[in-house]
């Protein structure tokens, strides 16, 4: 019998397969000799996809509850959060970060020729999910209280979002939204969270006002035709790609928008290329795969009886689902342009590997479910374990 975890992993593999094909098609140039299997096997995107599948497999073997709830040296979650925040901070130091499109979101790793870059904000996205899930599970009883329940966690979320926001507003908004949803699910009071809206909105407003390109994106979204060759170019070309393909699509590899018309065709706007080349079938495929991921993950969450697992699974589900919604909304010009990738589809090693690993962890939770509710809750604080298991 195919278990939910298996379905999830197979979906991820299918998605990465689709991603590899789509990225190669979108990355095609005139001089490349077609979309041969040979050239695809040699490309770094294929390597990333294989690495992502490997990381998912490894992650699915990890006993998440045991590892992330261990208290050795304050617990791995604490260290992961610290490391990822430090890495984000490092991108802000001039000379360390690599700038792409005017935003230094990347860190260069290893010798320059290797050209391995790494996006720390991607890491923060997942470590924060772990941290919030951990916190809420640990303090499930006091989440109603602001002072020792919600408050400290909010501070962590605020610091993370704040650091990420400096270079990457879209990811910060995503992280913040996911965290708030998790906190609601974790037992926080609505009105407590409502109090965070004005400062968060203020921070976003300042971030937009401070940066001319964010303001331009906003005005371009409101009226792309005001400056069709400038700020409005991106949304127009994206709509053009979708309209070009029509319901049937132009056929795989036959898209025209990737030839210099649509920027970011392999990354943030890959969905537009999929629409153009595969038409409604491609849209159905992508949306269907995401729906399988979120609903399978929800099933896994249901089968996990402990709060941490449920919240962690929910966090991953929300991150993937919301990111997909935001990206597709941007591509279809329902939202102003953000630097948000389509999870598991947009080209990007960091994103693929970390997303696949996070989903691997979720799949792993399905595997360990056999151990039973009691053992699942046994890594709760010892003195409270008996109480929880009684529920």
């Amino acid at each position, binding site marked *: 019998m195919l278990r939910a975890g298996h379905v999830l992993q197979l979906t991820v593999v299918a998605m990465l397969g689709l991603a590899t094909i789509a990225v190669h098609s979108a990355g095609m140039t005139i001089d490349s000799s077609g979309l041969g299997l040979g050239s695809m096997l040699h490309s770094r995107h294929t390597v990333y996809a294989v690495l992502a599948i490997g990381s998912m497999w490894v992650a699915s073997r990890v006993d998440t509850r045991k590892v992330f709830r261990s208290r050795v040296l304050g617990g791995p979650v604490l260290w992961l959060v610290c490391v990822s925040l430090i890495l984000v901070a490092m991108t802000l130091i001039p000379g360390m970060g690599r700038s792409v499109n005017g935003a230094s979101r990347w860190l260069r790793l290893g010798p320059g020729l290797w050209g391995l870059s790494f996006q720390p904000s991607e890491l923060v996205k997942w470590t924060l999910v772990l941290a919030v899930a951990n916190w809420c599970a640990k303090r499930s009883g006091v989440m109603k209280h602001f002072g020792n329940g919600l408050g400290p966690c909010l501070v962590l979320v605020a610091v993370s979002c704040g650091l990420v926001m400096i270079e990457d507003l879209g990811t910060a908004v995503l992280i913040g939204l996911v965290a708030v949803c998790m906190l609601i699910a974790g037992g926080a009071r609505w009105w407590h969270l409502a109090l965070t809206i004005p400062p968060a909105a203020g921070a976003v407003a300042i971030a937009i006002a401070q940066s001319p390109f964010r303001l331009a994106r906003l005005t371009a979204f409101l009226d792309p035709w005001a400056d069709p060759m400038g700020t409005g170019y991106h949304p127009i070309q994206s*709509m*053009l790609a979708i309209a070009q393909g029509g319901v049937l699509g132009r056929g795989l590899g036959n898209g025209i928008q990737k030839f210099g018309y649509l920027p970011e065709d392999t990354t943030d706007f890959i969905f537009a290329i999929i629409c153009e080349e595969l038409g409604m079938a491609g849209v159905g495929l992508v949306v269907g795969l995401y729906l399988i991921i979120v609903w399978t993950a929800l099933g896994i969450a249901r089968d996990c009886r402990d709060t941490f697992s449920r919240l962690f699974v929910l966090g991953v589900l929300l991150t993937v*689902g919301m990111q997909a919604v935001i990206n597709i909304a941007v591509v279809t010009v329902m939202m102003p342009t953000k630097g948000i990738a389509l999870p598991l589809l947009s080209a990007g090693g960091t994103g693929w590997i970390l997303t696949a690993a996070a989903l691997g962890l979720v799949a792993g939770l399905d595997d360990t479910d056999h151990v039973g509710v009691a053992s699942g809750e046994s890594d709760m604080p010892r003195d409270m374990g008996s109480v929880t298991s*009684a529920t």
Partner: protein
Amino acid sequence: MNSIDRAGDRRARTHWAPCPDASRRALRAGRVFTIVITLALLGLAGRVAQLQIDPPKRIVDRIDSQRSRTIVQARRGNLLDRRGRILATTRVAQRLFVDPKIIEDPNTFSERVAYTVGYDPASIERKISQSKNKRYVVIDRRVSDDRAAKLDGFALRGLAKEPYVVRDYPQGTLAGQVIGFISVDGQGLEGMERVLNPHLAGQPGAVRYLRDAKRQPVWIDRADYKAPSDGQAVRLSLDATIQTIAETQLAAACRQFAAQSGQVIVMDPVTGQVLAMANYPTFDPNDFSRSHPDDWRNRCVTDVFEPGSTFKPFVWAAATHAGLVQPDEIIDTTTSGVYRTDKGRRLHDVHAHGRITWDDVLVKSSNIGMAIVAQRMTPSQMHAALRAFGFGAVTGSEIPGEAGGIITPLKKWNHYTLTSVPMGQEIAVTALQLVRAFCALANGGYLVRPTILAPDPSSPDHRDAALIYERVLNSATAAHTRRVLRRVVTQGTGIRANSKMYAIFGKTGTAQIADPVNGGYLEDAYVSSFIGGAPEDAPRIVVACMIHRPDVSIAHHGGTVAGPAVRNIVEQSLMYLGVTPTSTTQDRSYVQVSH
């Protein structure tokens, strides 16, 4: 273990109550969020569908900007002569051009190109230096084959050749005015190229291709290519050999008599097919822009002139046909060479002929004799006769630019008209009209419709089956007129056109040219013409030669200027057509019998 953490735990134990609902609440919230995400994704899929099915108009307009349409030229059909020899064809030529901007040293560049391919280095260098800032300067519009071979494998920065389609007239100037030429964009501008354009041009195809953001073509989508359909080849009735004979003889005559211009038409009298239509001076359609537009005109059909004596046979035949005069009736053309009509008009003959037969009136080309008999006709009778021979109206040939000629309207006919027209005055005709009317004498009396198109191979007698030919003379009158015209050549004014090989019948004409400014006639300006056919018993061709303004100090009489040219054309053409020559002795006896 961290001691602070433990302390926190201890603190927590005192304040925190266990919350059994926590995981249930997490799942409940999770369901809600998942449903929200699901709805959002489905909504966005709907948005995509909206963009796919009914995109905003401005988006649709943009889609078109990414495509370009190019016309795929159809290959223009060939123009062939009646035996399939190519008169005009389409081929791919090479154009050699340079990019002066990237040439470093025009001097060495020009020398290298010139010595490798065989040009004048100075002219290349001049072209480069004249347009230093241009990116495209053609140095050879049509690279010849041997130069193209030398260019193969010769690479030089700034030099390139490109293929392009050209219209080629391999026969050069031959029949240039008939063939005409085409414009740069492939439309027929003159001559048969213009008239036959719908057949020759074909239907151009089109290709739509996608361009990338740098406007470079990427590929052609399926169904975006519409193949061109090439034009049809059209066969003309011209015979390149006879055309060459005609042009050679015409040019020789014009040069010999220092004439301004000249025309020759060779026609098959049975079918009305034009076998040759020559104009002097000639022009080369390959390079038409170098010649004067006046030389492009096919004056055989566009220009009218007063025919003079060559017109006499038609009135003569018409009067005979009408029974107004008998061939052996004696006409008194006076012994003084001056005749005064009833209405007081004075007419002159060059020589006084005295009392001669009606046949001899034509043989001796007597103006007085013609006028005497013409006065027996009513104006409407003569007018009708002229119209019957096809004068005063376009012949209906496919040749463009045909003039209708001028006949005085019947209402304005007076005594002068009645006595002028018989000697070819007060009437303006085209050479083609004249030849056509003469064909009626040659073919036994019916009026053909001249045509420049080759015979329809499905028609057995090579005639246009849809046409009904109108008879203007009975065959006996036609045959008798031919016999008399044969005597013109053997005994009369056309003796220089007499051939030892073929029995030529014909008529000379020496017409003064009307003065368009002052009225009357120009001094020492003549159209010297000869029109004839051969062989007399079964004519195969009718040949007319008109020489405009020969130098009168050399000669101006039609028999002298145009007669020999017609004789040569007849002899060479009939030999080419395989007509057996008749010996002169047979010829003589034949003439005597008819006399």
